[in-house]
């Protein structure tokens, strides 16, 4: 950010007193001041009592109580804290322990990482803070200097860091990946993942698998060629890249695109995947084909858009795939959170992978081979399709975008569930908790032409009845195996905040009007509300230090996007971290 002051008046006074005739009539001059500091390293190394984060720690089935090591809580993405201290009875006793401002607007979407008593959290526009997790004291800080005209479809979020060894890693909106010394904040290495000015950006948290940091790109609204990469954690050297769309005829999936439309095919990999150590399988998901709302030029299924990919983590080679929404013309990204569940299905123990997809259906697959098992509707409003026995949508032709569209299609292009926020899974209850938007839109098709770095959209979804009580939000508890909705909490606005589950039986999330909410996991009853006054778009976490239980909830929304699937939101932007604690 440039620091500029208009010194016109001062200049005029000085010029006048010095007898510089005519100078006072000139335009006020803009004088550029030296840039302020953007990187504050630790005064003394922080978190030194803890050793390096090891592969075994990341492989652990349960999240250790004194840490929060990964975006998804664990490799299975449960976001389920083992803390039994957070119960429907105790949660109302939470008090603010500390708060922390980010100094930025836009959605504060991160899931903090906690390790060695230090919280690592990223804000919008890629500020990275290392904070004493008990006291809130700032230990080190890095403000990434992004370019000024970034190619962002949907605001400036970052969803958090990954931690590995003694480093923390952050992807940036200008499509770089940076590794920091977790104790000091020193930069260890930086790599350019992609060219930001052609439409790439990074908003997600990396996933660490072995010695590799895996990170994907956004850019589905710019006709980029989607991919995700694996980098050596220690050196930043690229180990492999997996493209999500083909580059030429004859490559897998090329036959599913008309002509050479795959060259502008989008299908970004903008969220964090999952890893199954037992079968050594990496799971990653992909987003919409480009252009979003006009499929005329890309007839076919458009592989591997809107898909779940199973890969070998050491090579990035594909094992199998499953496509949720072939030939998508609604922006129903397949990027929502995937959960790796071991459960009895039809009486047999199965290794399952489940997802509440943006398209309104909850999917259950066998994660060993990608076999489709079941899809059930988890939203209240779905009319774009039904799902047949093979898992393929049977599309309602009225819902397809048209130039003179009138049909109200559900869900909206934001979903349903959305990759920008998380659900959580309580394995003891067999319930997965899914926040969602319940909104519908008219999808109008229009003319778009591809040019590198420019939006490549092809249409316009518009919510037509947001103020009529028909655009709202739900938190739903879904039976993991049957897909049946056990309870729903309804909020006035779409629910676009992430989710935390606890072994004590609560679910913590928040709404866009700025309330942090806690639910009884069994019943959905709201057992605690805290008015943070910043829309909740983040992924809450819990941890315990010196016997005291903490809950961290970043707050601060991006109202332009909030208003997209609902009415205008009056709540101002601005990021603030709230950390609550149970009484000592």
């Amino acid at each position, binding site marked *: 950010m440039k620091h500029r002051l208009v010194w016109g008046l001062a200049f005029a006074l000085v010029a006048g007193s010095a007898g510089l005739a005519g100078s006072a009539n000139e335009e006020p001059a803009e004088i550029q001041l030296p840039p302020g500091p953007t990187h504050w390293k630790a005064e003394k190394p922080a978190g030194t009592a803890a050793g390096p984060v090891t592969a075994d720690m990341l492989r652990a089935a349960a999240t250790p109580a004194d840490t929060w090591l990964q975006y998804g809580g664990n490799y299975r993405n449960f976001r389920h804290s083992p803390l039994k201290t957070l119960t429907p009875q105790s949660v109302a006793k939470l008090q603010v322990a500390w708060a922390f401002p980010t100094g930025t607007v836009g959605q504060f979407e991160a899931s903090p990482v906690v390790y060695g008593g230090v919280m690592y959290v990223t804000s919008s526009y890629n500020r990275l803070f290392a904070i004493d997790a008990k006291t809130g004291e700032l230990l080190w800080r890095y403000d990434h200097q992004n370019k000024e005209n970034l190619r962002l479809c949907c605001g400036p979020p970052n969803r958090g860091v990954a931690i590995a060894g003694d480093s923390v890693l952050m992807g940036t909106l200008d499509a770089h990946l940076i590794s920091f010394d977790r104790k000091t904040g020193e930069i260890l290495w930086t790599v350019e993942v992609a060219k930001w000015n052609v439409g790439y950006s990074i908003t997600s948290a990396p996933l660490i698998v072995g010695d590799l940091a895996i990170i994907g790109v956004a850019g589905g609204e710019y006709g980029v060629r989607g991919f995700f990469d694996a980098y050596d954690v220690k050196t930043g050297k690229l180990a492999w890249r997996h493209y999500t769309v083909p580059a030429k005829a004859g490559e897998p999936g090329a036959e599913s695109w008309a002509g050479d439309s795959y060259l502008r095919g989008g299908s970004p990999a903008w969220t964090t995947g999952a890893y199954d150590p037992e079968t050594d399988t990496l799971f990653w998901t992909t987003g919409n084909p480009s252009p979003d709302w006009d499929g005329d030029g890309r007839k076919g299924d458009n592989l591997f858009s809107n898909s779940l990919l199973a890969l070998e983590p050491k090579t990035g080679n594909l094992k199998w795939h499953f496509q949720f929404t072939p030939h998508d013309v609604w922006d129903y990204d397949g990027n929502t959170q995937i959960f790796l569940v071991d459960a009895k299905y039809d009486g047999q123990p199965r290794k399952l992978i489940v997802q509440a997809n943006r398209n309104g259906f909850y999917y259950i697959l066998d994660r060993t081979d990608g076999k489709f098992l079941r899809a059930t509707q988890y939203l209240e409003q779905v009319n774009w399709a039904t799902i047949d026995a093979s898992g393929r949508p049977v599309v309602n032709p009225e819902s397809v975008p048209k130039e003179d569209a009138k049909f109200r299609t559900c869900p909206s292009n934001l979903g349903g569930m959305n990759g920008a926020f998380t659900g959580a899974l309580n394995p003891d209850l067999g319930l997965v908790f899914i926040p969602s938007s319940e909104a519908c839109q008219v999808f109008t098709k*229009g003319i778009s032409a591809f040019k590198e770095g420019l939006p490549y959209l092809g249409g316009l979804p518009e919510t037509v009845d947001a103020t009529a009580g028909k655009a709202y939000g739900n938190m739903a508890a879904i039976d993991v195996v049957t897909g049946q909705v056990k309870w729903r909490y309804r909020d006035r606005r779409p629910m676009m905040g992430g989710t935390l589950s606890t072994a004590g039986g609560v679910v913590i999330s928040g709404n866009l009007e700025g309330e942090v909410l806690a639910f009884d996991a069994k019943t959905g009853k709201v057992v605690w509300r805290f008015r943070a006054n910043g829309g909740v778009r983040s992924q809450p976490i819990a941890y315990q230090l010196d016997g005291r239980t903490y809950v961290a909830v970043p707050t601060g929304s991006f109202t332009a996007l909030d208003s997209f699937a609902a009415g205008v939101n009056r709540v101002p932007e601005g990021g603030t971290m709230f950390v609550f604690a149970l009484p000592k």
Partner: protein
Amino acid sequence: MRRVTLLALALALACSTTEERASAPAEPESPAAAFARDPAAVARGRSIFIGTCGAYCHSTKNVERDAPSLFDCEWKHGGSDAQIFASISNGVPNTRMPAFTGALPQGDDDLWRVVAYLRSASECKAGKR
């Protein structure tokens, strides 16, 4: 007498105005103004706006989203046809508005059609902001 004087004064004013009009160089018509008289051109401008400028940026309604409303009376970067065309062509530095010159199938004509559509759908009326 008084009526004659007023009439003479009015005639004089009218003549001078006519003379000034005749002597001033004629404003060239904006391509957008010409397209505005052609419903097919306005419809194409609308379709381009929907397919290229809408969605996560501008709304087709007079509401401000992540990008400003283009259907009220306020133009942050100049409200003449030529200025709007320039904003679309060159983009607006340090905002999310990129430069669309050369980006559309029929080049500048398509950009002028977008300007014609914006004019046709504007809710800006005299005295209203």
